[in-house]
């Protein structure tokens, strides 16, 4: 079974440029998560989708970050414009059900460097 797929794996951009990350969750998984992980820190939840609906986006900086999950499958996270402080690893995860006790399966992440 294929795991969570993320692309690109690495991205280097100049500040003020836009950037987008793509996530393909495990087939059949209803819940999708985007996390941000800074060096030496644990992942921080940005947004959680149940099927197509964003049910928790309280930690998403909405002035520059946006996300979508069309048809309840793939998801895209966008930053526009990027700032130096956005340099981090962006992780996508998915879980089969809608319960918080469901195991989350993480992708390898996208490492973003903003110059």
């Amino acid at each position: 079974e294929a795991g969570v797929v993320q692309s690109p794996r690495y991205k280097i951009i100049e500040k003020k440029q836009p950037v987008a990350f793509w996530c393909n969750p495990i087939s059949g998984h209803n819940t999708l998560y985007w996390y941000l992980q800074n060096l030496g820190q644990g992942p921080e939840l940005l947004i959680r989708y149940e099927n197509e609906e964003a049910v928790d986006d309280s930690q998403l900086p909405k002035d520059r970050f946006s996300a979508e999950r069309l048809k309840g499958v793939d998801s895209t996270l966008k930053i526009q414009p990027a700032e130096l402080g956005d340099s981090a690893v962006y992780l996508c995860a998915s879980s089969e059900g809608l319960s918080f006790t469901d195991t989350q399966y993480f992708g390898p992440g996208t490492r973003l460097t903003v110059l």
Partner: protein
Amino acid sequence: LAKTTQPISMDSYEGQEVNITCSHNNIATNDYITWYQQFPSQGPRFIIQGYKTKVKNEVASLFIPADRKSSTLSLPRVSLSDTAVYYCLVGEYSGAGSYQLTFGKGTKLSVIP
């Protein structure tokens, strides 16, 4: 929101049992305790989850005392491949479909040959 406290780092020799304790003093009645493992350049991977007493699977055991204010992840006979960061999470369900898993800073386990 329940917060967790773990040691920043631990060292262990190969073949030893490792116990990593996590404090979660304000855990709520509905909260579950989950542990994840993360290797460099990879996303976290689920290890074990429990609510009370003891849970065991093929890779680890989880001990939760009656007051549930702490939990201990036990890794039997660690090997070099167990060198990783281990996260303790407390899941909080606040009703109406709203819940959150909060990762702390984790414990960096280094296994020494």
